[in-house]
């Protein structure tokens, strides 16, 4: 019987986001289907539903005509679905053979694990794939690529009908990618159903037969790989109506002198990053996850060590050793992960707002609680933070209000913020509040603050920023003004191979 995997009406919502809406498509055995889309388009969510990590709110997945109903990843594996993630799920200290046959090693006399038999069976499998791996070698000693091969053999050995790859080539070299593609072709010949998630367009044309494009949780295009081209795919990935959100913004048009000048900045992640930021300007950083945008922010802010290059603020060279030095010089950072890096969740709104200015709200030896309250109440009013009192624990506020607490921290009357770095400020925020955040960003620029706006949402970066810097693999791959920029251009630079 020919294998067939079908998604019918899959729906999934997270707080504030509809991650997947009415997803319908099918793949047949012996075909490789590419799942394509921007960050946050819903690819990972779909994979997680298929692998039993998440439950869909509605819809069904059928494999070979049988409806699947998973309550755990183990159920999915038993039903014949294997997902190979970027993070390996292998035990580094155990041998290749033991990793291929986890939990159910062949047993010999007396019920003991039969070491020799285990090794022989693993060797047979390795030969079948034409690889040169020692089945007795600990997995931890293999290269990343070979670890991935072990994972693939593990999936094959389970006799999975469906094997899904999540960005499999990200850590691989070209030679290793060739081996991987060869392996995928073998799996295809064996009649398996293969899902392939990747940002890299060139690969998609090399290994896949069909393409499904997701955008904002919807399936926007379904096509045969042989009948499409890169341009069409990019258009499908970004094509959407740009709402009135951006047209209605009250923008700042008074861009002043150079505030921040970064030249040839290098860290262990960044390579030769240069750009300038002017007073009242919004410089947007676009790129895929892991492109190095957050690292640029952290390097400027003194949170990560800089290995070479120059940072000048108002013409003076600076090299901050700690975030405190950066804050004292007028640089502020709203980190990407509010809960992990931005807030002390079990402290009050006041404690979170006054964190960087404690030295300035002292009366003698003691903190001036009255002054602290005033500053916090001012922030609550300015940003319309929904909290009953300034003593409320920050954890009990909504995501949008938590974000405003951090903004309030950096813009209080005791701060002299010249450069404000916003790392994914709209992540996990509902659409209404997003528009509010956009206007705030423009207002900051209007006050003469230079704003660095990092976002993985293309539409947002392209429409908010005065200048857009595109990054890929730790390098700046392009820079353009808002007038020049289109989502297609930016995406092409962000996906540059």
């Amino acid at each position, binding site marked *: 019987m020919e294998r067939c995997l079908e998604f019918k009406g899959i729906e999934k919502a997270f707080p504030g986001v509809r991650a997947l809406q009415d997803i319908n498509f099918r793949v047949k055995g012996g075909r490789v289907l590419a799942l394509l889309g921007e960050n946050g388009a819903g690819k990972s969510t779909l994979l997680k539903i298929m692998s039993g990590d998440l439950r869909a709110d509605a819809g069904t997945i059928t494999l070979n005509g049988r409806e699947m109903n998973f309550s755990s990843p183990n159920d999915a594996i038993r039903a014949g679905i294997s997902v190979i993630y970027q993070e390996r799920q292998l035990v580094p200290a155990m041998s290749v053979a033991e990793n291929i046959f986890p939990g159910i090693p062949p047993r010999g006399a007396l019920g003991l694990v039969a070491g020799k038999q285990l090794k022989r069976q693993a060797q047979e499998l390795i030969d079948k794939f034409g690889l040169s791996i020692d089945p007795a070698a600990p997995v931890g000693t293999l290269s990343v690529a070979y670890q991935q091969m072990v994972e693939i053999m593990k999936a094959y050995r389970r006799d999975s009908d469906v094997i899904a790859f999540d960005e499999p080539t990200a850590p691989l070299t070209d030679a290793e990618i060739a081996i991987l593609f060869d392996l995928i072709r073998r799996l295809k010949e064996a009649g398996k159903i293969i899902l392939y998630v990747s940002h890299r367009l060139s690969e998609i044309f090399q290994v896949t037969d069909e393409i499904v494009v997701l955008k904002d949780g919807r399936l926007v295009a379904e096509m045969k790989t042989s009948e499409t081209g890169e341009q069409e795919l990019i258009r499908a990935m970004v094509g959407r109506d740009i709402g009135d959100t951006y047209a209605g913004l009250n923008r700042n048009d008074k861009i002043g002198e150079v505030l921040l000048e970064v030249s040839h900045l290098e860290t262990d992640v960044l390579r030769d990053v240069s750009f300038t930021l002017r007073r009242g300007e919004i410089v947007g950083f676009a790129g895929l996850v892991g492109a190095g945008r957050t690292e640029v922010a952290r390097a400027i802010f003194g949170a990560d060590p800089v290995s070479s290059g120059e940072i000048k603020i108002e013409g003076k060279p600076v090299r901050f050793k700690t975030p*405190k030095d950066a*804050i004292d010089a007028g640089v502020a950072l709203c980190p990407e992960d509010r809960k992990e890096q931005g807030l*002390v969740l079990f402290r009050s709104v006041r404690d979170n707002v006054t964190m960087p200015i*404690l030295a300035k709200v002292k009366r003698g030896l*003691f903190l001036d609680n009255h002054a602290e309250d005033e500053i916090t109440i001012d922030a609550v009013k300015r940003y319309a933070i929904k909290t009953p009192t300034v003593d409320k624990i920050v954890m009990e506020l909504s995501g949008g209000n938590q974000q405003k607490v951090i903004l309030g921290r950096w813009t209080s009357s005791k701060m002299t913020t010249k450069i404000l770095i916003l790392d994914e400020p709209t992540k996990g925020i509902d659409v209404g509040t997003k528009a509010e955040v956009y206007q705030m960003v423009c207002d900051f620029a209007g006050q003469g603050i230079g704003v660095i706006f990092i976002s993985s949402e293309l539409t947002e970066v392209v429409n908010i920023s005065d200048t857009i810097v595109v990054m890929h693999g730790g390098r700046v791959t392009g820079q353009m003004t808002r007038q020049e920029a289109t989502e297609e251009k930016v995406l092409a630079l962000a996906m540059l191979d």
Partner: protein
Amino acid sequence: MKRLLRSKTVMLVYVSAVVVAVFFIMNHNYLSGDNIRGIMNNMSLSGTLGVGMAFLLMGGGIDLAAGAEGCFGAVLVALLMKTGMPWPVAMLLGLMYGAAAGALNAFLINGLNFMGFIATIAMSSVYNGFALVLTNNQNVAISNQAFWRVGSYALFGVFPMAFVILIGLIAVYGFILAKTRFGRCILLCGGNRMAARLAGVSPKKVTTILYMNCGALATLAGSVLAARMHNASPTAVATGALDAITAAVLGGVSFMGGGGSIGGLLIGLILLNTFNNGLIVVQLPSYWQIVSQGALLIIALCVDFFNERAKALALKSSSAKRAV
């Protein structure tokens, strides 16, 4: 949240009252003047260590070597006095040693990124061993009569000196925690070290000071005990860290950092010491006392665990609410 904390503190007061009542019924001598003075003396020992430990826990650290540091410190002070050094000078040098020991812990943890547990357990063994080597496991006799007064003096003829020191420490540290910038920074670093750093607080600086403080207070505790005993024992407060942690966690100091109050610590100390002393008064065999003391810490940790879990659940339900 605040109400919850307050009600927890109130509950601890009730629990302490019940403990006292039960032991009093079992043996009326429990509330005799002599025994209460004994409780105060013991409480001063675990309390002086406890203040340092509680601050460290609130700031997200831990020092399992505190007891051993205290023993070694007391031995050091006693040996210095033996050379004829005046006691205030010996005491000062002892406190400096304690701070240095704390600074070393801080370096292992902040500088070399060792886990606090492991680093301080190892250091505990080092100080313990040093104290034994220096003394050949013999108590060091103290003949300095002026120093004896530190142990024997009683304010208004009632309150032992050690207890007066403890009350002084609690007052000063209570103010530091509630009213000063440093106190706020302790709670911010303990609550979320990364966020505190990105908001301009220096977690390394804060925890280094806390480790130094803990080491110095451990030496103070050990020395005051030595003054009362007229000799310094290399093993007298070896389990001091355990008592200090028990008192702090019983009193609502979060084992995970970021929460706690001096008032809570005080009640934790009262509960711990009335309990431990009660076991002696009702003549529970001493080995069983050891079992009971460990069990008390486990109970305290369970309460802390359920609190942390309640926090985690609150976190989940608050994000679920946002989904609607």
